[in-house]
């Protein structure tokens, strides 16, 4: 998948064997408006993948659909070769910071402790072991001193690090992060990068929705360019090209150029008058 036109081999059943994340033909629509069109994405284990694309490209929706948080109209998701239902405990999620109410009456430590709830199951309460795990996760993101702080009294970057600590404590094989770098200070940015590298060193896979194109080559191994459909995905060196970026961010321009292409291509978006085409199979 080093070129945008390269498609996965047809017909072969998708086993997702050897892949941390395998997404096939994922389509998500809100009512009749497509948000993701027939997206394929294959992520080998042990690497850091950035998902980039313009606003409204469906980056967050891709994550949520993979995690089963929004219903998919079509498609298949495999995590380490298993459907999500059987791989739930191998998947962690760091939502956008704005997705929760930071006025909620709780402390940083308590939020991180929530990451241990899966192991506890229903009804059982977190004990000292869980709190210690949470505290050491806070320490890893440099937040141990603020463990007892009410979460609304933390800065944006500190709140982000609380979320990261919560993902750390879940200790999952695959972690999905939605814009962790959004609006954070330099200290936090550094902490996130170190954390990502640490996770990779331990063989974990991290899929990150990212908005800063300039840092993609520095921070990530692989990149997926998305604009409702997948434009390209693969190693940064191969895929993070000017042409692909133009296809992803050029919107209408990309669409017009693609129309001249002999192979029928999915439609561009951002213009309500532009018709959306699904991939037409021969």
């Amino acid at each position, binding site marked *: 998948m080093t070129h945008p036109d390269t498609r996965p081999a047809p017909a072969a059943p998708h086993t997702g064997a050897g892949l941390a994340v395998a997404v096939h033909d994922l389509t998500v629509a809100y009512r009749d408006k497509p948000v993701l069109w027939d997206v394929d994405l294959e992520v080998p284990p042990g690497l850091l993948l950035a998902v980039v694309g313009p606003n409204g490209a469906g980056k967050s929706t891709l994550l949520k659909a993979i995690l089963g948080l929004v219903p998919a109209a079509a498609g298949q998701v495999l995590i380490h070769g298993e459907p999500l239902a059987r791989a739930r405990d191998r998947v*962690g999620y760091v*939502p956008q910071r704005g997705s929760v109410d930071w006025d909620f*009456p*709780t402390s940083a430590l308590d*939020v991180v402790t*929530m990451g241990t709830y899966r192991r506890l199951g229903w009804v059982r*309460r*977190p004990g000292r072991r869980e709190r210690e795990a949470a505290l050491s996760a806070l320490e890893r993101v440099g937040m141990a001193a603020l463990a007892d702080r009410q979460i609304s009294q933390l800065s944006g970057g500190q709140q982000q690090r609380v979320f990261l600590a919560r993902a750390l404590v879940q200790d999952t094989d695959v972690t999905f992060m939605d814009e962790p770098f959004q609006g954070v200070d330099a200290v936090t940015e550094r902490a996130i990068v170190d954390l990502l590298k640490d996770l990779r060193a331990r063989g974990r896979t991290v899929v990150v929705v990212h908005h800063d194109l300039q840092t993609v080559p520095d921070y990530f191994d692989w990149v997926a360019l998305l604009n409702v459909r997948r434009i390209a995905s693969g190693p940064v060196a191969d895929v993070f090209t000017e042409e692909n970026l133009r296809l992803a961010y050029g919107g209408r321009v990309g669409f017009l150029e693609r129309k001249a292409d002999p192979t029928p291509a999915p439609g561009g978006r951002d213009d309500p008058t532009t018709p959306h085409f699904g991939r037409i199979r021969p």
Partner: protein
Amino acid sequence: MMSPQVEIQLIAAVTAAACSLVGTFLVLRRMAMLSDAISHSILLGIVVAFLAVGDLASPWLILGAAATGVLTVALVETLHRTRLVKEDAAIGLVFPALFSLGVILLARHAGAVHLDTDVVLLGELAFAPFDRFAPGGADLGPRALWIAGGVLLLDAAALALFFKELKLATFDAGLAATLGFAPTLIHYGLMSLVSVTAVASFDAVGLVLVVALMVGPPAAAHLLTDRLPRLLGLAVLMGAASAVGGYWLARWLDVSIAGAMAATVGLVFLLALLLAPQRGLVAAARRRASQRLEFALAMLAIHVAQHECGPDAGDECRADRVHLHLHWEPGFAEVVLRAAEQRRLLRREGGLVRLDEAGRDLARGALTR
């Protein structure tokens, strides 16, 4: 045996505690208005169940009513999910429909019973002690107290058992889902609790008070603490205290007990809003005033430091003219000067302001910060 007065207060306090307990999670989920919707539409369930079984004391009434409460939530969400109406509008559409259906059925078919609209709105707390729970002739107290106590126990047990799950699903439903804690199930579980609590409380205190007790005490408690267990405890205490206080207010003013209790809930919230140590309006105003003074002190120190050795020191540093240069009201300048003298930042000598060492430090610090 307790006196009717004590019984009324007990019923009210226990009901209030139960409402505040489940109400806390409604408020935290920003679903306070659902308490309004549920408590109104359960009337339909009560009337339908009554028409079906023909007995006002039947437990089917509670179940039927609780089911309507959950149905209300489901209808609101279905309507909201169409993305054609916002959630608040969906609430405003669903519950008046169900409530008015209940009122019509009540007027047409249940006219003979003592279910009437006054009772529905304000309850009949004053008469609650006359309805005794007396299995086999042994008087065990008012029935309403047993119902309220049972519901409080149910709520407390459910919240204690599923505290962690409720907290998680309320704070971050997405995480709850990825951790396998079915937030929808938790949501409807909570809504069932709210419905059962509303039904039981509605019988004793009427639906106006149900709404007041589910929203007021938790909202007030949230101003006083930022820890969830403490918030729950405070909400229960404030709810129960408002109930008892409202009873005495009603006696004093000779008005509806439920009305006086709702008013007390509002009063307690107002007090919390004004006087909460961190978030209260008074504390906020004080903080602003002290910041204003600190800023004025720094301004004054800098002004004097700039000019006291200059050629125009005789004018710029005159104690009675400083306010002109700083564009202050003369009264405010005097307050600032006095505060500065008290802190030994400066002295007034022969009508001139002279900085002390501390004042010079302040000016230097403010300029180099």
